[in-house]
């Protein structure tokens, strides 16, 4: 079905906030919040629509959110900025849910999640995601760009080309960063913290 319903339409606010980015201003809370909320709503909607389907389909959600919030009025620059912000927001969203699920499992103080929300992260993935997030934060310290590539490729579900556009780097850089970041993250996850050489060299 056509996704951007002209009646609900885009209100232009997000387009406006995005154009602030083009003037070099940092990502505003308002923009992040707006994108985050939209992703959240779409994620819940998707869970309801595809009962029994394990997949959250972040790729579709991010693209749908773009059509809803920006629609046909977006140009190349606003699109690439949007994709970068949305990938960050999607990471935040998934990690928030993973944390709440994991807290719920341990019988922590968090209130039980409403059903449609509980399904946003398949339960067995929440611990994996939290471990990944921890390693990703370490990577961010010494290679922020590679971490952003992971954000776009993994959390945002963007392809290499879109990631290159979103981050304003070459496609080749994206491919390389993605390859080395994946290997590094996986090595971290399977060995626990301690990129031996790098830490030693530091000390």
């Amino acid at each position, binding site marked *: 079905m056509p996704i951007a319903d002209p009646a609900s339409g885009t209100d232009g606010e997000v387009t406006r906030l995005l154009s602030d980015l083009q003037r070099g201003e940092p990502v505003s809370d308002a923009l992040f919040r707006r994108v985050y909320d939209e992703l959240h709503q779409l994620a819940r909607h998707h869970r309801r629509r595809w009962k029994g389907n394990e997949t959250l389909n972040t790729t579709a959600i991010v693209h749908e959110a773009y059509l809803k919030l920006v629609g046909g009025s977006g140009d190349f620059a606003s699109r690439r900025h949007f994709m970068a912000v949305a990938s960050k927001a999607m990471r935040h969203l998934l990690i928030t849910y993973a944390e709440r699920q994991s807290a719920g499992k341990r019988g922590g103080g968090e209130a039980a999640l409403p059903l449609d929300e509980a399904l946003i992260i398949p339960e067995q993935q929440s611990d994996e*995601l939290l471990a990944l997030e921890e390693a990703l934060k370490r990577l961010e310290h010494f290679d*922020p760009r590679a971490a952003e590539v992971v954000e776009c490729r993994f959390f945002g579900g963007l392809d290499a080309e879109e990631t290159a556009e979103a981050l304003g780097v070459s496609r080749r850089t994206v491919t390389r960063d993605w390859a080395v970041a994946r290997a590094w993250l*996986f090595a971290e996850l399977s060995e626990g913290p301690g990129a031996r050489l790098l830490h030693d060299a530091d000390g």
Partner: protein
Amino acid sequence: MAVPPDRWMRVKALFAEVVALPHAERAPWFDEHLDGDAELRVEIERLLAAEADANRYFDTLGNKIQGTDDFEAEPPETIGIWRIVQEAGHGGMGRVYEAVREDGLFDQRVAIKVVESHAPRLVRRFQQERRILAGLEHPNICRLLDGGTLDDGRPYLVMEYVDGEPITAYADRNQLSVDERLILFAQVCEAVAYAHRHLIIHRDLKPSNVLVTDDGTAKLLDFGIATLMDEDGAPNHGLTQTGRRLLTPHYAAPEQILNQPITTATDVYALGILLYVLLTGHRPFGATGGSQHEIEQEVLKKEPTAPSTAVSKSAGKATDSGGQVLDLTKRGRRLRGDLDRIVLKALRKEPERRYASVEAFARDLQRHQEGLPVEARPATMGYRLNSFVKRHRTGVLITITGLILTSTLVTFFAVQITAERDRAEAYADRADQVNAFLTDILDAADDPTVDRSVLLKILEPATERAETELADDPDARAAVFHALGNLYARFGRWDLADSLLHNALLIRRELHTPPHPDIAESLYDIGYMYTESTPDSALQYFRAAAEMHRELHRGDHPELANSLVQWSRMMPQDDPEKRQRFEQGIEMIKRMFGERSPELAEAIHEYYVLGFSGGTPEELAAAFEEALDIYRETVGEQHPYALHAMNNLGMVLHDALGRHKEGLAFLARSVELGREVLPPADPDYATMAVNYGATLHERGQLQDADEVLSDIAETTARLLPENTAGIGQSHYWYGRNLLSLGRAEEAEAALRTAWEILRYTAAIAKPRGKSQPRWTACTIIRMRTGRWNMPSASLWKLEKRRKRPSIESV
């Protein structure tokens, strides 16, 4: 837990290099490259060990999160007057539905392609496909019936529905004979030749794009990545870039893999592969699988097995009935001779050695069927020699001499050639690795968040590596020298930049016959290096570059446009051509990139910077302001280029127009933003900060100036490579300001540092305007300390003319 970034950069670069190697070559690679560094080796081995599992892990986890479903889950029920019957598949850029007329007026079945996302590049390609198809009417080309836009803005195409199967499957299912296959193939050639006459190259011919219907009609599909040619038959470069990554490597021609111009010869090649598969049942390259990289290497280097041999080989392996073996053996005999030669001629690596046109290819096949002599002759020694010379020029020159002297040693020569070729290929592989390493570094050089002085430290060993390891590979050596030269030029190490860039040019001149893109690149960058120091030389180099680019590219081309702008910038102000060339370049950029593109802003900014443009201060200010506006609209205010424009605008407003307050504000903002987004060791940032500090000094805001200048003097001394211009400039102004503050001792120390470096840099390249700070430094020190012997006449003159270079090239 900060990891040293240079260490990590190295890990990254090396990992990218080794991960591209086949497994068997990794161990020797480790021994060769990491022998002396056990720690590095351990880390890279750790990553390598994780790699395969990492891919699986992320794919699995990713699938659970991202979804493998495409953009749209459910198909629309109707599109225009068409009712969707079912989804027929989806490809790289769209989903294809089978549909019928909703009103039932005619019993017509169509295929509707809908673009899958709003990504502008996909939409553009889609619209391009529509334009291309609209121009083609041929019984063997799938027809475009209609097109439009969905409610949400996604474009769609309505096409003739082709109920058929891939040509190879059709031929096999119907057990067509060799001659029947050739007749079928002739239809395909006709369609492609027709497209070529309409200046359209298909570029992606493969069995799945050539369907055959039940009645035996071949239909060509998917002009998705076709390139429109210019009227004169030259490929349209604007579109070539999108083509490559969409390619199926098995059917890609060498020029497509190398990203070289695509011509009708590319389709001749793809038709050659198609015919090869049709006749033998095998693909000539990558028949046994392999990674994309491995297949590409085969396409570039391996000579295809003759079709008859390929068939006979599979006859030897056939385990089926004896009948099949007999059949294959018979077919092998049928292919031997003419057909082998025809197919191999179509598959030659060099486009100019293939058939000149699809018609010529088809004609030769027809002559063969009619029993006439064919155009494709056995590959002569001349041809083989020639193709080899291209691959490895120096090695062959010596061997050729030997051949002329002793013609009896032909056998020996042939052996020699094989050995030489193996060596040449080994070099090419290594050059690829060096290039991969370099590309990564150069990507990093363009990335404003990567510290350039760190980069230089990593690159230093690369110079040595190039000298020794690439002694036999002049092409790669020149590339390394060139890249390093550019980097040193950015740091103001004119001595090293000069020798490296000229070295690269010399090598390239020996390797290539002009006009050649590599030579043009060298000419341009040497010109650029000279802009500040010796504008006259810069003019000569830019002109040579522009002329060569004009020979190389018919019509618009970014490099031609840039060299026109640079050339015009260096022309004397009374030259009537100056304005004309500039506008030529600017118009070209507008046509290629648009009226408000960063590329245009860059050209305008470049032209006016350094004051060679001859514009009035008002014109300069207007130009920088326009560039800044465009940057703000497109790449954002924090982009390094925007900061350069802002800084220069500040300088013009302040120095030349007397608009002090505004000027200072722009300077302050550019430095403030630069401090946030640029690495501290960025030479351009140093220039911007010095401009700002010096202006504060001139306004008499000595305390503010001291804050800015002491900071930048300290940073440059600590972070920039030794003897770079930025250290000298910052210390010069830092010292002068200290003098005004009455802190003579500190001033002397700073000015001494400045003098040492400025003397050094100026002695090499005599940068315009930069001799003034040098002499002024002497002067001031002499005046204050009496330690320097300077003739007072020149001293006075210099002091009177004392003025810092007003618009820095940043």
